[in-house]
Structures are given as structure tokens and as C-alpha cells.
């Protein structure tokens, strides 16, 4: 049962071959057995099984929806009423959310089961899942290596078959990078597609939630639940949501694939490059055409992002003051000292670095040189995509310049860590949908991810291309040894 996709499990539930209680129990047991991966921060079998029982009752009444009874792991950035919701931080290590994020409410309304809350980089700031207050997550493909971040717990959980699917969030690559490093399908929707209400904020002009699954079909099933207008999120867009499963099988003959010259140059590992070339050849066999495109400003996406994201984070994280919820330090002298001690003790090193960079970039005298300059560069980066999409329907390249690196390899060098997201960040800056799908393995048996970038609100097309590719390849079916 643990080997089945969400689509297959939904079918088995529909045919009453298995109950949600049986399924949920089986995954909870696997989570317990593989606790060494550190994929989950909170597991609450009683709550999960209560939801599973309710799902079975709902099905008995003939009111089931496609995901009713399917257990799904939730990134610990989504507030879920009554669940500990830590965002990977000491600051929120005691925070039991008093309300549901819209994403959680939508899964609950669909009858899905919350299988637990997954580990993540603190406040989603990291590319390796090593900044979590609750310790690093291990990559099931090699437990000496990182699963990628920031949605590393979700990635490890799905890759190790501890959950059939999970949610993630992506501010600069936090769904796509871990998906690539653990052989998953991960989709970051267009900015505005999935509600950010109750999704703990990092950088509000970039953050977007999305599914992390084993197949494109499963991603479509999850996105069908997650996507949609939400009046409680001022950046949610009121646009119709298609049935993302309806177009999965569409023919891709004549599809124009743009290959950005800048994504295949210096810095790209040769084995990754070969795998992506082979995957593109496979898409050509399905009738797609390729054209070379240019994204000349993409090389400046990382510096641009490391102004804008910390600037927004420094503002968003000012809410953690030790007054209304979360951690409060002891032994303070006055109010200011209480704030300063609370924040010094509650936040980890990477979060503090970014708060300080952001504070500096927004401070009097430096605003134009940093923040304004980065916003102008952001426009140029977005315009590059507009021009490229005049000549193609999707853009394809690698998700990550390398496969999974060793735990601790980049923790002493923030700048080196930041460059892990060199191919993913520009997509967030532009607000476009991006996806990573399995595209092979290197000589050490580590997964390689291929990135698909679409036009605004063209998630259906990305899922269609990914699904067709998955019909003729079997990379996505492979499981890490010891977790089959």
C-alpha cells in the first residue's frame, strides 16, 4: 500500500479495498519506524485517526471527494487549529495554532487526513533543511546527505514513503530544490494561485504554497484542492481554477520548449547536464520542439533575491516580540530588553543574518542602493521571461546545479548555500509557476531534477508536460533503498 500513488490510493479507498483508518495507521507506523530521518516535527496519531474515522464515515454516507481519507503530510509552516505549528523555530516551539490556514481548511473540507507536520528550515530560510531548530532532515537516498530545503521534511517523508504526498512552500526554490534532491514531483504555483492565509510569512511578494508528490497526476489532484481565490489573502487572485487532472494526457506535439542558454553554462554539474539533455531528447520524441532562449539577467537573481527576501522577512518577522504568542525570554530589564532577548534566543543564526541584512537594506541612506536597485533588477528579470515566452510555451532546464550535497558541507558559508537556488530564484521573482520532476540519477545513485517553468497561471500545461514525460519514463517510480 505504501508504494501506491495518491491517485491509486484514492481509487482503492473509492472501491472500499482499504479504509482511511487502515491507511493512516500504516503510514503512522512507517513514520515511527523511520524517525531517524527527522522528517516530522509533530505526529499526533489521535488527531490523524479521528480525521481518518470521519473520512470513512463520510465515504459511507456517499459524500466522498477524490482526496477523502488520503493522509497528507503538512509542512509545519501551515497553521492547523489545535496542532503545534513551529515553522522550524524555537520562537514558535510552543505555538499551538488557534486557527486553520486556508490550505489546511481546504484539505479538511476535501476530507483529507493531516498525517503530521513536517520538518523545515527555520522560517523557511535555508536550502538544505539544516537551519531547523529541530535538527536537520536526512535524505533517504543517502542519509549522510541533505534533502534540500526549505521543505526538506516534506520531501524526505514522501521520498521515504512515510506519506503519499505532502505540501511545501517555495520562496526561492523551497519546493523545487528538495523535490529535485529526493526524486519527487514538486510544483510551485503562480504567485496568487494558492492562498497564503495562515501560511507563516517569510517574504510576502515571493511565498507560494504547492504540492510535493511522486507523480504529476498526484500534484494535479492536490493542486485541485489547494488552488483558488481567498478573500482573506489580499494577494490571492480571483481567477477560475481549471480541473488540473483534465488536461494531463493532452498531446504535446508541437509544444515549444525554450532552453535558456544561461541555465546550461558554467557551474552546472556534467552528470546533471547529461540527464537534462536526455530528458529533453525524450520530450522531442513526444513531438516537442526546442528553441534557444535568453535570460540575460538571471545571473543576478541571487543577489537581487538576497535583498528583497531579507527585507520582507525583516518586516514580517518583527511580529515576534514575545508578547502575544510564542517564545518569551526570561530575566529582562525592560520592554526593549525583553524584545531583544526574546528575539536573540528565539531565532537561529540564519534567520538573524537575514533579519539584519534586511534591516540594513531598508535603513535610511541605503534604501535606494539596495532595495530600490533590487526592485528594478526584479523588473528586468521578469521582462526576460516575458520576452522568452514570446518564442516558447515552457522553459526547461536543471532545477539544481548539483545533486544532494553532504550534511554540513555548506553550513559555514551562507553565500555558497545561497547559490544552491541559482536556477529557481528567478521564477519566484517573476511570480511564474515552476516545477521539478525526476529526470535520472548520477553515478552515485542520487536523484537529478528537471525544472519546468510556465507562463502565468499555466500550471495545467506544466502538469501536462510532466505527466506525458512520466508516461514514457520510470525515474519517478524509483524508491530509495531501504524505503521500498
Amino acid at each position, binding site marked *: 500500500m505504501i508504494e501506491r500513488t495518491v491517485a491509486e490510493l484514492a481509487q482503492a479507498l473509492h472501491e472500499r479495498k482499504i479504509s482511511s483508518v487502515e491507511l493512516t495507521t500504516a503510514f503512522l507506523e512507517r513514520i515511527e519506524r523511520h524517525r531517524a530521518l527527522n522528517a516530522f516535527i509533530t505526529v499526533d496519531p489521535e488527531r490523524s485517526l479521528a480525521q481518518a474515522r470521519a473520512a470513512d464515515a463520510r465515504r459511507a454516507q456517499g459524500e466522498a471527494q477524490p482526496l477523502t481519507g488520503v493522509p497528507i503530510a503538512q509542512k509545519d509552516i501551515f497553521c492547523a487549529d489545535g496542532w503545534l505549528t513551529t515553522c522550524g523555530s524555537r520562537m514558535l516551539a*510552543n505555538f499551538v495554532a*488557534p486557527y486553520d490556514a486556508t490550505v489546511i481548511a481546504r484539505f479538511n473540507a476535501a476530507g483529507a487526513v493531516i498525517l503530521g507536520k513536517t520538518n523545515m528550515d527555520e522560517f523557511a530560510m535555508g536550502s538544505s533543511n539544516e537551519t531547523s531548530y529541530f535538527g536537520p532532515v536526512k535524505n533517504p537516498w543517502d542519509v549522510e546527505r541533505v534533502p534540500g530545503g526549505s521543505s526538506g521534511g516534506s520531501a524526505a517523508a514522501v521520498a521515504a514513503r512515510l506519506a503519499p504526498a505532502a505540501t511545501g512552500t517555495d520562496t526561492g526554490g523551497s519546493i523545487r530544490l528538495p523535490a529535485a534532491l529526493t526524486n519527487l514531483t514538486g510544483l510551485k504555483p503562480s*504567485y*496568487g494561485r494558492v492562498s497564503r492565509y495562515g501560511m507563516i510569512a517569510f517574504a510576502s*511578494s515571493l511565498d507560494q504554497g504547492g504540492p510535493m508528490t511522486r507523480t504529476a497526476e498526484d500534484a494535479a489532484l492536490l493542486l485541485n484542492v489547494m488552488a483558488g481565490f481567498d*478573500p482573506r489573502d*489580499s*494577494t490571492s*487572485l480571483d481567477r477560475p481554477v481549471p480541473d488540473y487532472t483534465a488536461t494531463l494526457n493532452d498531446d504535446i506535439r508541437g509544444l515549444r520548449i525554450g532552453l535558456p542558454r544561461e541555465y546550461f553554462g558554467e557551474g552546472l554539474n556534467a552528470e546533471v547536464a547529461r540527464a537534462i539533455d536526455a530528458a529533453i531528447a525524450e520530450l522531442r520524441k513526444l513531438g516537442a520542439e526546442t528553441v534557444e532562449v535568453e535570460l540575460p*539577467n538571471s545571473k*543576478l537573481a*541571487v*543577489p*537581487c533575491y*538576497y*535583498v528583497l527576501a531579507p527585507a520582507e522577512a*525583516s518586516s514580517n518577522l518583527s511580529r515576534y*516580540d514575545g*508578547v*502575544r*504568542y*510564542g*517564545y*518569551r525570554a526570561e530575566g*529582562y*530589564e*525592560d*520592554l*526593549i*530588553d*525583553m524584545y*531583544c532577548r526574546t*528575539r*536573540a534566543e528565539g*531565532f537561529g543564526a540564519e534567520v*538573524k*543574518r537575514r*533579519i*539584519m*541584512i534586511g*534591516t*540594513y*537594506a531598508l*535603513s535610511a541612506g541605503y534604501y535606494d542602493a539596495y532595495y*530600490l*536597485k*533590487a*526592485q*528594478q*533588477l*526584479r*523588473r*528586468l528579470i*521578469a521582462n526576460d521571461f516575458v520576452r522568452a515566452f514570446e518564442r516558447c510555451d515552457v522553459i526547461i532546464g536543471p532545477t539544481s546545479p548539483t545533486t544532494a550535497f553532504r550534511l554540513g558541507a555548506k553550513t559555514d558559508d*551562507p*553565500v555558497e548555500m*545561497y547559490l544552491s537556488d541559482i536556477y529557481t530564484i528567478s521564477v519566484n*521573482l517573476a*511570480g*511564474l509557476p515552476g516545477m521539478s520532476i525526476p529526470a535520472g540519477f548520477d553515478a552515485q545513485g542520487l536523484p537529478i531534477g528537471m525544472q519546468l517553468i510556465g507562463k502565468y497561471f499555466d500550471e495545467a500545461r506544466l502538469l501536462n508536460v510532466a505527466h506525458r514525460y512520466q508516461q514514457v519514463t520510470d525515474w519517478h517510480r524509483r524508491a530509495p533503498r531501504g524505503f521500498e
Partner: protein
Amino acid sequence: MSLDTNQVRKIAHLARLRISSDEAEQYAEELSRILGLIEQMNAVDTRNVEPMAHPLDVPLRLREDEVTEVDQREKFQAIAPAVEAGLYLVPKVIE
């Protein structure tokens, strides 16, 4: 652009982060490296480029000025570090 420990202490104060002298030196070094990365932006001429604050070129929605939330004070205060008589407690700010 590199930062010295005085600048780091000033930024930390603006950000309401208490830091020790050792930490100030470490942050000065790390933040200077990050600023080195950021300054690669200067390679591009952005004169007359309209700044982009947000990926969506749509105006923010307005809504009717109506109460949409119910009172959940007790639930919300149950998770606060210190409350009394329905109020959040903080150290004395007025003598």
C-alpha cells in the same frame, strides 16, 4: 561594502536583536560577505527602470468595512506568554 562591529550593533538594535561582542565580530564578517554577493547587482544599469514590488500588476482589492471576525479573545490569549484580566502583560513602560 563591508560592515564594522559598530554598524552591526546599530543594525542589531534596529532589528531588536541582542548580540554579544563575539557575535558582533562574526556577524560583521558574514554580513560583509553577503553584501559582497549583493553588490553584484551594480553590474547592471537600471536607470529609468520601473521598480517591481510585486509579481501581479493588479490593484489591491477593497472590501466593505464590515466586521467579519468573531471574538476569540480567550482562545488567542490562551497561547500568550503572560495575560491578566484579558490583557497582555509586558514590562512597565511608563513610570
